[in-house]
């Protein structure tokens, strides 16, 4: 025989346990307010308070994880950004981007000769859906995902259309936010570069050998 209303009392016992538990066992009962994984065990001063003072930026990337992705950024290898930018404006990402939020124009010098870098590289972050397809299709490892999430702006039009110069970030910054991924990417690039250089070297070697042979033959010819 069951007690009259027993199921209801059981349920009430559960809710009471949760009520008390939310004060005692924060990790289990209030997981979104559990910051024990942070070094100091709590949020930095003022992070919980939103909206913040004007101009205050929350550039704390320790709250994001290794693979976290928000919006794309363009990588350069340090120094003057446009000199070392990896992007060659091949427009593969523009073509593959599912919501078509990327726009690229190639850069030409005054003679009309194509220099391998983008003149225009716009990403509309109001349309971008952070899917990372552009990163995967890029053959030059030029575009990767940023984890900067404070992009709110009072300007709907200019503010949400991120231009080339704002997209450019150094490889060091990339290492800072996604250390493992960046290291793997660098290694992969190094391997590719080595392979390429080896190939180039082999080609040069071959060319040199051929030239030598030719020279020897020519000398022979002459000797005759």
């Amino acid at each position, binding site marked *: 025989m069951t007690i009259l209303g027993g199921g209801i009392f059981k349920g009430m016992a559960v809710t009471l346990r949760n009520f008390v538990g939310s004060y005692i066992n924060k990790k289990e009962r209030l997981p979104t307010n559990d910051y024990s994984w942070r070094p100091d065990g709590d949020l930095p001063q003022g992070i919980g308070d939103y909206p913040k003072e004007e101009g205050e930026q929350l550039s704390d990337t320790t709250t994001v994880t290794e693979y976290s992705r928000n919006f794309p950024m363009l990588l350069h290898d340090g120094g003057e950004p446009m000199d070392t930018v990896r992007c060659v404006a091949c427009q593969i990402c523009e073509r593959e981007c599912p919501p078509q939020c990327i726009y690229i124009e190639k850069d030409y010098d005054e003679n009309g000769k194509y220099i391998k870098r983008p003149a225009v590289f716009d990403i509309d972050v109001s349309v971008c859906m952070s899917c990372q397809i552009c990163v*995967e299709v890029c053959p030059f490892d030029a575009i990767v995902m940023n984890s900067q999430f404070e992009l709110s702006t009072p300007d709907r039009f200019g503010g949400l259309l991120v231009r080339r110069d704002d997209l450019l970030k150094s490889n060091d910054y990339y290492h800072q936010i996604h250390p493992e991924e960046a290291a793997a990417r660098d290694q992969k690039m190094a391997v590719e570069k080595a392979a390429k250089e080896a190939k180039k070297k082999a080609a040069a070697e071959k060319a040199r050998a051929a030239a030598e042979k030719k020279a020897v033959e020519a000398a022979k010819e002459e000797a005759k």
Partner: protein
Amino acid sequence: MSTAAAPNYELIQQDGLETNLLEVSMGPHHPSTHGVFRMDVKLDGETVVDLRPVFGYLHRNHEKLAENMSYLSSMPFTDRLDYFNSMANNWAYALAAEKLIDVEVPERAEYLRVIMAELTRLVNHISLVGFFINDLGALGTPLLYAFREREKILDLFEQASGARMMCNYFRFGGLRNDVPEGWLDRAGEVVDRFPAFLDEYEQLLCENEIILSRTQGVGNLPRELAISAGVTGPMLRASGMAYDLRKVDQYGIYDRFKFRVPYTDGDTGDCYDRFMIRMLEMRESIEILKQALAGIPEGEIMGNAPRVFKPKPAESYGRIEGPKGELGFYLIADGSPKPYRYRVRPPSLINLTVLRDMCLGGKIADAVIILGSIDIVLGEVDR
């Protein structure tokens, strides 16, 4: 064969009083239609005498979009079909596309796929139970407990794929990246703690007299109708048909795991059965997760599939046991990098076929919980 009839405004003569039926358009913005779904309900007092589901408020022609982009590019869009189970959607699409290009998926990737799919099932089922009890009128307490646990699983998804809901994690021939270090241990911890939560949940819900009397005998779905109407997933099993694609098709590596499929003997098939089958399925998912986490090997994560490819002209239909039912992708390749035809078989939409049959004669409150027990996500219904 009953289908929605054209609206007719018959007058009911009762004791010399002429009364009209009350036509209520529930939705598209109604708290418990789970999105922008609409039910045109005709009420006699509180009793539903006619119900007509209206779709299309979230229609974005996902299929047409996918036919205009490469195979890989529509992978992120599959996340947005059933936004609760993006991993399962990814898998179904990857399965269909892998049939076209004939690529071997590495062992570790297969294991991770199973782990992700079962975690997704947990996420879906706890949330569904929460939403269902919310439709019954609880003030969100079970739902928030469900979301508390979902939070822990979404944290795992975020660590693995970089996003909490729109994971976009599966690739043709494997996965996008390997899970980070220590992820498997954290997943094991979550999985180990989950049964305790389920116990608590069952204690809160399964014996509650109000829930029992509200859900039992409401929305009966006979087995024959369920099969004929193509109802799949937990709803089919609640109607007494033990048909689970994980057992039937054994896609992926499901043949390696030992698990059971809960089902009823088909006498009732009401909302309570649908709710309980989901509770029981979660326990089986935990069994699978434990076996998968114990058996996962080291190794490669990605097969030799290229990112962008041109499959030979062929047709393929890949289907998986999604948390909501059979999720299928029908692809026709014509040799170009874009699919010629791309079709999603949405379980949510097809399970709605029987909505009207189940609701007629019930109260308006029953219609709400029947809709809740079907478990729809409008992103998938309307596509």
